[in-house]
């Protein structure tokens, strides 16, 4: 059985330097797939390939049986959303207006704002808990609130798949967990999520499908409970560690050894 979103044999390069070469990845339908790996392993590059931000020089990305490249940009945007690593909130834009911009692929010159758009925005703001911020200016929000607003914008797009590029990077631990819980809720409500994440333990706790990358290749993938071992972490990160069971979630918990305890 093939999955809705998959990369087949793709090569992704930055100015002729291949970062990812001839990689194949099937994103399981209805999964919360998290891609991990050391810096420069190609995980963000791979996500950019999925997100149409980088054109593969070989191979194809397939979405719902069609080549992603052959889809009209707006049609692709109705099926596949992205929370970019950094976006720019225009000066003086309110939360409701920013979330509303997520409706762009569903609108046309004659239909710039319909009751469907209104409903999608209301739902997205309710799901992310930003309804009460609706009239506030995005510039005035805290980092955690702002990231929720961007998630709401991506949700208003109402796509089956949502890509998340290091969504928790600039947040404190409480906001990170807050956001990961939000993603877990979204996943439960039927969105397939693909995230690039730095925090191995967050990945182990929330992923239903974990992909470990190194040097542009997939080292291992599967249920984090089955694949995360001290050997894998050492093979991926060169990091000596021990793996125990997280007493809270029952998922693997990676504890780096460091120099002192070795």
């Amino acid at each position: 059985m093939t999955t809705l979103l998959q990369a087949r044999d793709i090569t992704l390069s930055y100015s002729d330097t291949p970062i990812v070469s001839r990689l194949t990845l099937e994103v399981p339908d209805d999964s919360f797939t998290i891609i991990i790996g050391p810096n420069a392993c190609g995980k963000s590059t791979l996500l950019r390939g999925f997100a149409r931000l980088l054109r593969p020089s070989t191979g194809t990305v397939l979405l719902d049986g069609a080549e992603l490249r052959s889809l009209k940009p707006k049609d692709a945007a109705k099926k596949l959303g992205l929370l970019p690593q950094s976006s720019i909130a225009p000066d003086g834009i309110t939360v409701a207006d920013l979330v509303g911009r997520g409706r762009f692929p569903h609108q046309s010159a004659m239909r710039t704002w319909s009751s469907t758009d209104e409903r999608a925005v209301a739902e997205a703001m309710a799901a992310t808990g930003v309804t009460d911020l609706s009239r506030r200016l995005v510039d005035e929000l805290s980092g955690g609130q702002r990231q929720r607003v961007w998630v709401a914008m991506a949700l208003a797009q109402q796509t089956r798949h949502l890509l998340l590029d290091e969504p928790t990077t600039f947040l404190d631990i409480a906001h990170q967990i807050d956001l990961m819980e939000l993603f877990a809720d979204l996943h439960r409500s039927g969105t397939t999520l693909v995230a690039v994440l730095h925090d191995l333990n967050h990945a182990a706790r929330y992923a239903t499908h974990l992909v470990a990358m190194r040097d542009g290749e997939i080292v291992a993938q599967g249920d984090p409970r089955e694949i995360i071992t001290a050997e894998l972490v050492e093979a991926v990160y060169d990091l000596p560690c021990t793996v125990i069971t997280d007493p809270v979630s029952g998922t693997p918990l990676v504890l780096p050894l460091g120099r002192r305890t070795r």
Partner: protein
Amino acid sequence: MSIDQRRAPSPDLRTPDLAPVDHGRRLLRLETSRVAALIPVRAVVVSAVLVAVIIAAGLASMTIGAYEVDFPSVIRAIVDPASDPDIRQVVFEWRLPRVLFAVLCGAALALAGGIFQSLTRNPLGSPDIIGFGVGAQFGVTLMMVVLELNTYMFKAVGALVGGLITALLVYVLAHRNTLSSFRLIIVGIGVSAGLGSLTSWILISVSVEKAMMAATWGAGSLASLGFDQLVPAAIVFAVVALASLPLNRTLPVLEMGDDAATALGVSPGRTRLSAMVFGVALVALVTAAAGPISFIALAAPQISQRLTRSNTPMDTVPVMLTGAALVVVSDTLAQLVAVPVGVVTVSVGGIYLAWLLAAQYARRS
């Protein structure tokens, strides 16, 4: 399986009476089976007031001149073909095209300004500042003085080619992996200074008569324009303005960054290219007709944005109306003190630019 059916609502979304979105302003809702839009009441009111200002200032400006015509006679001359033929000739043939030109130039420049300010995400990113206006001016000077081709279409071609080459030059010089709007503005200021001095050099190396002709045009004036120049300019304007309508929706999306725009189905490269070409074309069509009318492109989108409390300088209708109102009022003032309209906009715009720079500087530090 279809994609849409698979999206089950999450538990907290199942509430049947989900509160409507609080947009934080009064809105007009329009929804039929084919057309659906949400229009801020404020934008409608502002646009209506601007139209009134344009009409009032336009009529007022038609009473001014060597041949005095009072207000009622102006209106009679416009609406009634059987009115006094002398007055009708003065008002209809001489003064009306000037007012219509003011409306057209203002609208075109303001739209160009909105396009470039949205593109650069910077209120300084207007064609006046980033050199495309000077490029167009250089192109026209070359056409008029060196090649001695002095009709509207030749000047328009000169302005368009000059503007586009300048745009390309600035773009290439400022582009380094990514395009930062700050670098674009700095490079643009440099390029416009260079082109400005080249224009001056051409003017001092040709005969006095030619230089005078070019200098008169170069002050930016609507005084000598009639219907025969208005018609081609209006046609070009209508075509470009219609072609740039899609930018009203795509440019605000592009303001959020290339990645977000791509994810939403806007192609950044294509949008930027069409925005550049249409923006330069709008500046060129005005420059060819009236010469450089500075600061309208810079000020109009910002003024409009503050009046309508919009979140983007790219808001076609109020921005164009603001520009038109600014030029019509400036031209009326210009007639009262007997100077070219460009002189008025430069003086008022200079003060505005100083304020804008001070405000931006204050925010940065």
